[in-house]
């Protein structure tokens, strides 16, 4: 192995830019790190080169642990995005710089720089200054400079980023050729998937600091394991499917395939991926000899030379929905790519009705929902665990239970108790005992792992410290929080509170995923707070009018789109509108509709001043008869 990185971690402030990344790169391999900008891929490269220190983890180059070495000691060739050529030196002086630093005699340096100039196709240009070269030529000088001292590995940070498309394509081929000739182990960082496909022996896909999948371009394109990888690499139509007797079903349609499928999900749910070229269009159903996905309207036709890319909207299909759900859409938007016939025959137009057939499909095993349960001495552990187990079963999720106490013995005792409560046989649950401050332990865990939801018990009334801890968690949790209280042990009806138009789209999408996985029905509640009498001494005490004002049109639209979003995922949804004191009305509706989960946004807290100095979130938390889910601004991970 030329490059091995183990469990690399890097934080900028509280934000994890590199989140436990491990990777091995074979001798002579060209590995592409592919990810959107800000995903942490360049940071990884800089850590390998020693330009940035890592907060955790180790880097090995050819078996040597270089984690604590300076860049000078690592012997890596690094090509920067803007090349960082030394402008005051000639091309030859630039290339010889690394040799000069290694005290190589002048004659040898000149020979080496001539050899490299020839290799990169710039023979005879050694006397020029960088400014006298084109962008593409400068890039090749940068590569030559990085290779001159025969580095142990070559690291390229977006090396084509600053070039125009045509030169980029030429240089890609040239680079691949050079890399194969020199046989240097290379990591190339890019956000361009075409570049990744063309250059990479293997591709590592990175998102938000995490290395999601590594594999050959074909493997990643044909059988990605995760939603992000599927959608980031090429066009993707993702739909929710189900395995029945080893066959994949999409709504009522059975996708024929020789392979028998199994899934981690207890109800056999998985994601079906259609690449745009996996779908075939026809003007009439009879023309299709393959399984038919449905009928739809062409919305847009894009001509891309050899390919034609079409955007369609399928008519809604029973029990079929698109993933990830988008807000307020009707029908199923899909992408299709096809090779137009050269005689222009059977070309499709926007607005045309077509049938869509399925040539091929791929399966993404659903990443199970991961729930983090925090238990400290003050919590009602039993109720929390029962609820957690229910959630795990209902959603096909995995539950991690963290027990926390100030001393080791108590923490372990709590873990043992928790294990006994659940019964050791549950494979869906794992247990950890932690010593320390409850808030820090929970937040540390919530950041380090990949969780979708944090489950907490309501703090006991007699413990002021538990109350403080709890409030801090509610305020700082990076994950959506579900506070377990009341006697409910199932999720059948979910109440989304949209006081003043909030919570927003994301909360509905997030809560909707929970509903989809538990099969719960939903209500979208809007409470008009304007007609509520204000609390507190100083505020203007408007009398509550008897007649509710008409719902503002933008809220009506928001509610309509919200229900549509939920219904598109196969969830039953209804709208309720009320006016009055926000918290009172929410609780009334929860009781009336027999809801067993209330979903609110944390940002309700931000609206306090407008709503008369009430901290809505904590008041609902205190008074609700059932569990409350607080959705944070960025629920990030899909359920």
């Amino acid at each position, binding site marked *: 192995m030329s490059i091995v990185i183990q469990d690399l971690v890097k934080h900028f402030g509280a934000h994890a830019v590199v989140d436990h990344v491990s990777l091995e790169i074979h001798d002579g391999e060209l590995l592409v790190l592919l990810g959107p900008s800000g995903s942490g891929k360049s940071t990884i490269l800089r850590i390998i*080169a*020693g*330009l940035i220190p890592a907060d955790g983890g180790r880097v090995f180059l050819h078996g040597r642990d270089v984690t604590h070495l*300076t*860049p*000078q000691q*690592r*012997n*890596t*060739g*690094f090509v*920067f995005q*803007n090349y*960082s050529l*030394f*402008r*005051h*030196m000639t091309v030859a002086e630039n290339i010889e*710089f*690394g040799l000069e*630093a*290694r005290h190589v005699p002048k004659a040898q340096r000149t020979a080496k720089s001539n050899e490299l100039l020839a290799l990169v196709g710039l023979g005879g240009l050694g006397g020029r*200054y960088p*400014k*006298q070269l084109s962008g593409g030529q400068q890039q090749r000088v940068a590569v030559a*400079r*990085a290779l001159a*001292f025969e580095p142990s590995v070559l690291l390229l940070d977006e090396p084509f980023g600053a070039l125009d498309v045509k030169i980029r394509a030429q240089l890609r081929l040239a680079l691949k050729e050079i890399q194969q000739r020199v046989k240097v182990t290379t990591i190339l960082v890019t956000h361009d998937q075409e570049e990744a496909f063309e250059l990479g022996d293997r591709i590592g896909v990175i998102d938000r600091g995490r290395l999601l999948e590594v594999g050959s371009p074909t493997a990643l394109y044909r059988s990605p394991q995760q939603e992000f990888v599927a959608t980031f690499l090429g066009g993707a139509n993702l739909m929710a499917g189900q395995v029945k007797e080893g066959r994949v079903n999409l709504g009522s349609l059975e996708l024929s395939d020789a392979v028998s499928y199994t899934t981690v999900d207890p109800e056999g749910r998985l994601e079906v991926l259609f690449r745009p070229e996996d779908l075939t269009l026809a003007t009439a159903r009879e023309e299709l000899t393959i399984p038919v996905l449905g009928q739809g309207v062409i919305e847009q036709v894009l001509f891309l030379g050899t390919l034609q890319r079409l955007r369609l909207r399928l008519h809604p299909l029973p029990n079929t929905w698109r993933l990830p759900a988008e807000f307020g859409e009707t029908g199923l938007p899909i992408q299709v790519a096809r090779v137009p016939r050269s005689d222009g025959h059977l070309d499709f137009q926007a607005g045309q009705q077509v049938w869509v057939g399925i040539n091929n499909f791929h399966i993404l095993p659903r990443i199970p929902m991961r729930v983090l349960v925090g238990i400290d001495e003050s919590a009602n552990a039993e109720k929390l665990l029962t609820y957690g187990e229910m959630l795990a079963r209902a959603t096909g999720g995995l539950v991690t239970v963290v027990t926390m106490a100030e001393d080791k013995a108590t923490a372990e005792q709590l873990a043992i108790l928790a294990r006994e409560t659940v019964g050791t046989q549950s494979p869906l649950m794992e247990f950890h005992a932690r010593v320390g401050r409850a808030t820090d332990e929970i937040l540390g865990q919530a950041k380090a792992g990949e969780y979708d939801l944090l489950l907490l018990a309501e703090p006991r009334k007699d413990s002021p410290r538990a109350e403080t801890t709890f409030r801090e968690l509610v305020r700082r949790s990076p994950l959506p929080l579900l506070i377990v209280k009341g006697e409910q042990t199932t999720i059948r009806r979910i109440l989304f509170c949209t006081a003043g138009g909030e919570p927003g789209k994301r909360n509905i999408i997030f809560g909707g995923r929970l509903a989809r996985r538990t099969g719960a029905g939903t209500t979208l509640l809007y409470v008009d707070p304007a007609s509520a009498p204000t609390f507190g001494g100083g505020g203007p005490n408007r009398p509550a009018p008897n007649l509710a004002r008409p719902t503002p049109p933008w809220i009506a639209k928001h509610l309509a789109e919200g229900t549509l979003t939920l219904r598109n995922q196969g969830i039953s949804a209804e709208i309720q509108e009320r006016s009055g004191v926000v918290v009172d009305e929410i609780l009334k509706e929860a009781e009336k509709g027999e809801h067993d989960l209330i979903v609110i946004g944390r940002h309700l807290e931000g609206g306090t001043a407008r709503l008369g100095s009430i901290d809505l979130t904590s008041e609902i938390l205190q008074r609700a008869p059932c569990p409350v889910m607080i959705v944070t601004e960025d629920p990030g991970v899909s359920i």
Partner: protein
Amino acid sequence: MREPKGWVPKLLIGIAVLYLAVLILLPVLAIFQGAFAQGAAVFFESLNDPQVIAAFWLSIQLAIAAVVINTIFGTTVAWVLVRQEFFGRAFFNALVDLPFVVSPVITGYMVILLFGRQGWFAPLVKATDTQIAFAVPGMLLVTVFVSLPFVIREVMPVLREIGHEPEQAAHTLGASSWRTFVRVTMPGIRWGLLYGISLTLARALGEFGGVLVAGGAVTGKTETATLYIFAALDERQYISAYAVAVVLALFSFTVLIGMEILRKRTEITQ
């Protein structure tokens, strides 16, 4: 697109040229006229006075010393302020501009407060038997102080613009920190640095109030060229005063224009 109206740019050019002419060119011409009022022979004769030569010599020594000190420390300070993160960086960054806003006369007075007979460092001065206030070392302190911001302020934006990457590139290529500084950082900032140096030189040569207070303007001992001009004007020796002024002005001009030519020439290739 419509052509912009012809008279607007012309008017602006007129204003700019007139402004520079009235404020800079006219006074310079007046000095030249004054210096050569009685012919070239008298001009050169007045420069040949030993007192004038001594004054010039002191000015040049002070200026060169200030340039050397401010180049070395100014470059270091600029690099630290741009590249390093440390507590109080913003404060020190603001502190650099202090010499711009403090009157040189006050600076001279500060030297006396520190190194005078009643000053903070009086015991030290006594113990080492070195005269600082009312002597050349005090004048040097003032000159360094008033010309301190130029190198720093000229180098900092250049360092910032170049960015950290050329230095990082040099590190990955195996160059030590020193080699990186000499071969990569210095050449990168050289024009900013040279510009800063020439401003430092001009400022140091032209310093008057501070060196007057700190040095006391003793003829032949602590009298610089500018102090000589002041004294000569006081004694109504106008030709001498103008002649020295002309030489000082010419010197500064030459430095600035020489720099500009050098820069233009290298910019073409690099």
